[in-house]
């Protein structure tokens, strides 16, 4: 009985984190982006520097009318946001943030998380196809073809660190991690992070939702709460990517002075800042340029890293 209770409690905590952390990232994006553009960002909602802006946005979205286009495939259209969002929640359950602080420790953690994260793209494809809108369709097709670019380097880079640690479990990887891995596994870390950005459609890889070209890609026809869910999925994705990167490559809760979950959060926070920073600084790539980047740079680098890791682990 207590086991069930504990599992339920852990799930609730993860769920709460799943709902609040994306909002924090969203607020961070609002503010960082604004100041980088010499603006101030939201200033009113909540009184102090607009801290409640995203809560207010949520309330606004909830009040909006739910519009389903007449020609849309209604069931698929309505189901799509859930399919985009849930994988990130499921993946988050498996990510540890401190010693023992994990929703559910899974032996093949990396394998599980990467597999589940890949499901999210189906939600986007469903949204794009079911919207009965040409822009949505173009966006969905771009999204799916983008999969070709990021999935392989993403997995290869993760494989490198798993190989180095000799385990697929996150806790084992963090335990095996040592500071010099920062240098040794740096190429894999960069490849992983860049590929992750491409998976999340974050600029400069946001061509599936490129606003100047195809309005908002697969999400063009969405309104109200369902639209908010897609946005939440995007930010949940950022949270997930940042935690994954910090756990896999930056040593998770290892840090100077004392090992604590605070370090995991700090590292993930810095990474989230980088995600926003890149969005502010760069224009958008073209779909074929991403493919070129992936196949000519990311994959060769990831393979070389894999080779290096293999040689080093065997020779050690």
């Amino acid at each position: 009985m207590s086991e069930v209770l504990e599992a339920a409690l852990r799930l609730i905590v993860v769920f709460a984190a799943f709902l609040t952390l994306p909002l924090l990232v969203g607020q961070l994006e609002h503010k960082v982006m604004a100041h980088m553009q010499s603006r101030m960002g939201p200033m009113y909602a909540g009184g102090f520097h607009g801290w409640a802006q995203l809560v207010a946005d949520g309330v606004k979205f909830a009040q909006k009318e739910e519009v389903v286009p007449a020609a849309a495939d209604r069931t698929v259209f309505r189901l799509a946001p859930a399919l985009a969002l849930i994988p990130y929640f499921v993946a988050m359950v498996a990510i540890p943030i401190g010693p023992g602080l994990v929703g559910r420790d899974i032996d093949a953690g990396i394998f599980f998380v990467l597999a589940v994260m890949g499901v999210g793209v189906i939600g986007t494809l469903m949204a794009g196809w079911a919207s009965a809108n040409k822009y949505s369709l173009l966006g969905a097709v771009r999204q799916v073809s983008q999969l070709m670019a990021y999935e392989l380097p993403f997995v290869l880079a993760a494989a490198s660190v798993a190989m180095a640690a000799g385990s697929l479990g996150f806790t084992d990887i963090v335990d095996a991690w040592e500071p010099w891995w920062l240098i040794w596994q740096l190429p894999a870390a960069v490849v992983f992070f860049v590929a992750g950005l491409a998976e999340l459609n974050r600029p400069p890889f946001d061509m599936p939702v490129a606003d100047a070209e195809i309005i908002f890609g697969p999400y063009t026809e969405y309104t109200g709460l369902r639209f908010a869910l897609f946005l939440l999925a995007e930010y949940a994705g950022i949270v997930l990517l940042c935690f994954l990167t910090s756990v896999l490559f930056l040593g998770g809760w290892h840090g100077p002075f004392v090992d604590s979950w605070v370090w995991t959060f700090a590292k993930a926070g810095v990474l989230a800042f980088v995600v926003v920073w890149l969005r502010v600084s760069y224009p958008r790539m073209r779909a074929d340029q991403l493919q070129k980047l992936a196949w000519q740079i990311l994959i060769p680098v990831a393979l070389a890293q894999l080779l290096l890791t293999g040689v080093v682990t065997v020779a050690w």
Partner: protein
Amino acid sequence: MTGRDGKKGVGLLKGLSITLTSMTRRSITEQYPDVQPELPPRSRGVIALLEENCTSCMLCARECPDWCIYIDSHKEVIPAPEEGGRERTRNVLDRFAIDFSLCMYCGICIEACPFDALFWSPEFEYAEFDIRNMTHEKERLGQWMQTVPPPPALDPSAAESKEVLGVRKKAAAKAPPTEQGDES
């Protein structure tokens, strides 16, 4: 400096450093509803009417490129001030309205007015929920007069206007010829 074929990666790093330094600088946002903007006196915000000066000559209404000025007036007979004198007629302004939903803010009416009855005011906060309320009647137009700023001083090399020159000449003619060119 064509900028083509630069070193790879330099531009990307430069971009990151620019946005980061911007973040540390003060933002330039104007906190508008909390802090009112300082507008120059020539700002074309709203048109104010000085009713006493208006002779309902209709010049402004006729010159307006999109005819957004409405003027109604009637003639009033002023009885002769003394026995045997002549009666005079005078235009009385009944209605003077500007429809700001049509107005293109060109200022031709103000230029056209021969009696200085119209002025620009930089005031701009008069948005309405109903388009019909954008038609300001003469009372409302009169209220704007309080917000009309004095015109700015002109550049030192600007020619003096004929009106000022005329006044000067008269003053100079009246004054003894030794003093000239002083301020009137």
